[in-house]
């Protein structure tokens, strides 16, 4: 069986895919979304963010949309990124894997607290 691209999926790439699962975002918005969904633990720097975006683009997990004017600064045109079906499949698979891990952790009573 051929090795899947981005296997294992790097944390930055996973967080980017997860951020794009809801909506199309530009680079800065992706960074903010990742920061929010990780409770501030992950703040992607430009090198990591755009390096990961390029890798995901090359692997066809995301696609770049036509550059469009930003609402708060019409002089700047930003690139937006959208999750592809392959990307959605990949992030779903990763999340399912994490969910399975979480179930095991719960069964072993490793986690405490109402939110888990």
């Amino acid at each position, binding site marked *: 069986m051929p090795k899947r691209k981005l296997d294992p999926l790097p944390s930055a790439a996973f967080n980017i895919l997860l951020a794009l699962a809801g909506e199309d975002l530009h*680079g*800065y918005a992706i*960074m903010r979304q990742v920061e929010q969904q990780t409770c501030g633990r992950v*703040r*992607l*720097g*430009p*090198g*990591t*963010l*755009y*390096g990961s*975006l*390029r*890798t995901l683009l090359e692997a066809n997990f995301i696609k770049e949309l036509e550059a469009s004017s930003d609402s708060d600064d019409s002089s*700047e045109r*930003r*690139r937006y990124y959208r999750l592809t079906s392959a990307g959605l499949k990949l992030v779903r698979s990763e999340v399912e894997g994490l969910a399975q891990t979480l179930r095991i952790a719960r069964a072993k009573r490793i986690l405490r607290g109402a939110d888990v």
Partner: protein
Amino acid sequence: MSEKLYALLLKLYPSHFRRTYGDEALRLVRNRARDEKGFVSGLRLWLDLLVDLAISLPREYCKAPTTPIAAAEPVNGDPSFQLLAEGSVNPSLLFLGGLLSAVLFWACVTSVARSRTFPSLFRDPHSLQWLVQSDLALARSPSEDAPVGAYSFCMIANRDIPINSVQPLFVFYFAPPGASGVALIDGKIVKIFKNEQHLSIRADVFAGDHQFAVHLDKPAENTSMSRNDDFEFCPPK
């Protein structure tokens, strides 16, 4: 300010990254600097940027696309090249290149060492030892112009001995008309003497091993030698 500094750092990235994402990266920094004001936030921003730089920079160079090319059909009579593939350099080729470089470097060093340029340094270990142990002013090849009558031995000081110690470190007795030359401790000159029959050597010496040497300008008959009680000869190796 942050943006300008980051623009400089961005130059460290490979050109393909800068071409594709340079503007976006700068805009991201600009937006973060705009949204995260204050000393702590600014500090955190720069910490993030520097960590990101350290992590992503090597990765980008590893991923840098290479463009292997091959000769193609001439276009209008001019030589042309054709792009075959894009991808990173094969690691085995990198290893082979490194190995060849190491072999070449070793060959160069060996050939220089064996050349006639530095014969006294590399062919004769005694010459090298001479240079190390003596001051450069005295570094004459023993085979060419060695001082006659050199005494050299290793001694162990059992404690620190100051220069004003009651007992001198050594006393050499020479037959008339005496001896002239230099005395060295660990390669440093401690005394220059001329026509001395009763040569007394004093110096500050720390506890431990020391190499003593006395070089005479011309032969002299050494009748006896005494040493400080806190000295012992090094055990033979």
